[in-house]
């Protein structure tokens, strides 16, 4: 059956054309809203990237003009340059969980910002290979550690409370290790305040966030002992839709090349300084 579009009838021709144009735009919008693989991104010449809305300097933050900036933003900009597409940021997800859900729903082509390749998130999206490894930094109440007989004994003590900030890259591993002992608070500052108030004994953060806080609050170093966990190395990754096999493979190759040609190392030097891995 052929569908014949009639321009006669009660609608004036101009209104009918406008109606069809609107319908077409809505249809194309829905198409781009759905899961996009590499071919779709290349055809649209645009990569829509979901970025976590919260501030996580130096990885993701907001610059003076209100635009996203930071190491992860610079990196995804480099990825888009190599893909030869323009970049659109969607910064509405308040937490990494929301960002992963946004990617899973196909509202964006890729998601970045404090994402690590946790098994829980891998149920609904695909991950690129890690492009930067961080490590855990545990800030331990010195008095609580002394009472427990050392930091190792404190980590194993079921009565010792553990805190961390919402959206931290270290959270997936902590939830597995500490379970009900873990309290997640909106910011790292609030998590540390809980320990300083004696309501918990351990704060866990990534090395960047933890070091940054300690540098800004040197006096707190008297109360808190910083213990790096080199064996816990969560990697920063890019999330894509679970059907986007080709986009995932392309991103993996791109990350490999950025690691080999030193461009990721240069970004780490620019943003992380002495904290670069």
């Amino acid at each position: 059956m052929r569908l014949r579009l009639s321009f006669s009838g009660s609608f004036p021709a101009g209104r009918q054309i406008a109606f069809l144009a609107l319908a077409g735009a809505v249809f194309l919008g829905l198409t781009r809203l759905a899961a996009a693989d590499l071919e779709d991104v290349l055809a649209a010449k645009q990569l829509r990237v979901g970025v976590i809305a919260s501030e996580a300097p130096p990885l993701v933050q907001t610059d003076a003009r209100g635009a996203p900036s930071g190491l992860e933003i610079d990196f995804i900009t480099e990825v888009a340059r190599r893909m030869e597409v323009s970049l659109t940021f969607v910064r509405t997800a308040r937490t990494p969980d929301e960002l992963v859900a946004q990617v899973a729903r196909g509202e964006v082509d890729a998601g970045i910002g404090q994402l690590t390749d946790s098994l829980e998130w891998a149920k609904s999206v695909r991950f690129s290979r890690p492009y930067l490894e961080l490590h855990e930094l545990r800030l331990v109440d010195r008095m609580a550690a002394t009472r427990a007989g050392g930091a190792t004994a404190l980590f194993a003590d079921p009565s010792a409370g553990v805190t961390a900030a919402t959206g931290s890259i270290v959270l997936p591993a902590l939830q597995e290790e500490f379970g009900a002992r873990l309290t997640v608070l909106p910011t790292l500052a609030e998590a540390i305040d809980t320990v300083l108030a004696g309501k918990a004994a351990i704060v866990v953060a990534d090395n960047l966030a933890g070091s940054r806080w300690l540098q800004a609050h040197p006096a707190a170093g008297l109360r808190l002992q910083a213990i790096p966990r080199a064996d816990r190395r969560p990697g920063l990754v890019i999330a894509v839709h679970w059907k986007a096999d080709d986009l995932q493979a392309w991103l993996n190759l791109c990350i490999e090349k950025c690691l080999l040609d030193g461009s990721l190392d240069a970004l780490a030097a620019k943003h992380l300084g002495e904290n670069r891995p």
Partner: protein
Amino acid sequence: MLFFRSVRRLLLAGMALAAGLTWTRAQFEGPPDIARIEAAGELRIAMTADLWPPFFYLNKSGELAGLDVDLATEIARRLGVRVRFVREAKTFDEIVTMVVERRADIAVAYLSDTLERARLVRFTQPYVQVKPAVLINRALAGAARRGRDHRSILNHATARIGVTTGTSAESFAAADYPLATIVSYDTWGEITRDLAAEKLTAGLSDEIDAKSWQTAHPQEAITIETIIREGPPDTMGIAVHRDDPQLLYWLNHFLTLKHQDGSLRQLHANYIENDLWKKDLQ
């Protein structure tokens, strides 16, 4: 007339919108394979009815235990569902059929990821690898030996080699010893019995079966020689239905993380590199 034209236009627009929304909704739905398991609330693991220690066996409390049991239980826990072991398969090939026919979600069952089986299911990266092993009857092989290596002795028209039906050893035997007579048995126990009775020249399995048998029958070392073969190892993977791509991705990611954090290595240490588990064997 104008009324009917408007109604038709409205109907067409409604149909187009409904089709568009259905299509869009299909795009937004999460991975159906993971959703199916979460909705069922359990992960069904295909296994053979026969037990294959140390991969799956009954412990002193009569519960299923072993390397595969630990691995499958952790997989289910990380997926947030119960584990259910479906021990219905009579052979290892039938385990694959169970996954194909969706009588189980995955197979974690000492299952070799052979190319033949990979035509029917997808395999994860290997989580265990074992070397093939040959048990040779010294008396029968002795006459033919005269300085020749074991492969020359076994790849001979007079040689009779026992293999367990539906195992990867069956296909290896046909490929490696084309001149010999390959005899299929239901169980490894029957092979070792006929080997001791000089009805077979050799029995083909892997280093785990061979070492278990050696430990249980030290007196037989005089008559039976154990050879761990050099060459490519036999690798075990988790079998997944071909239409479950996200589950396969998730399982591979799970195994990668277990490699990285050393817990897979620990599992091997518990069940393959030492014999402590045997104290718990029923």
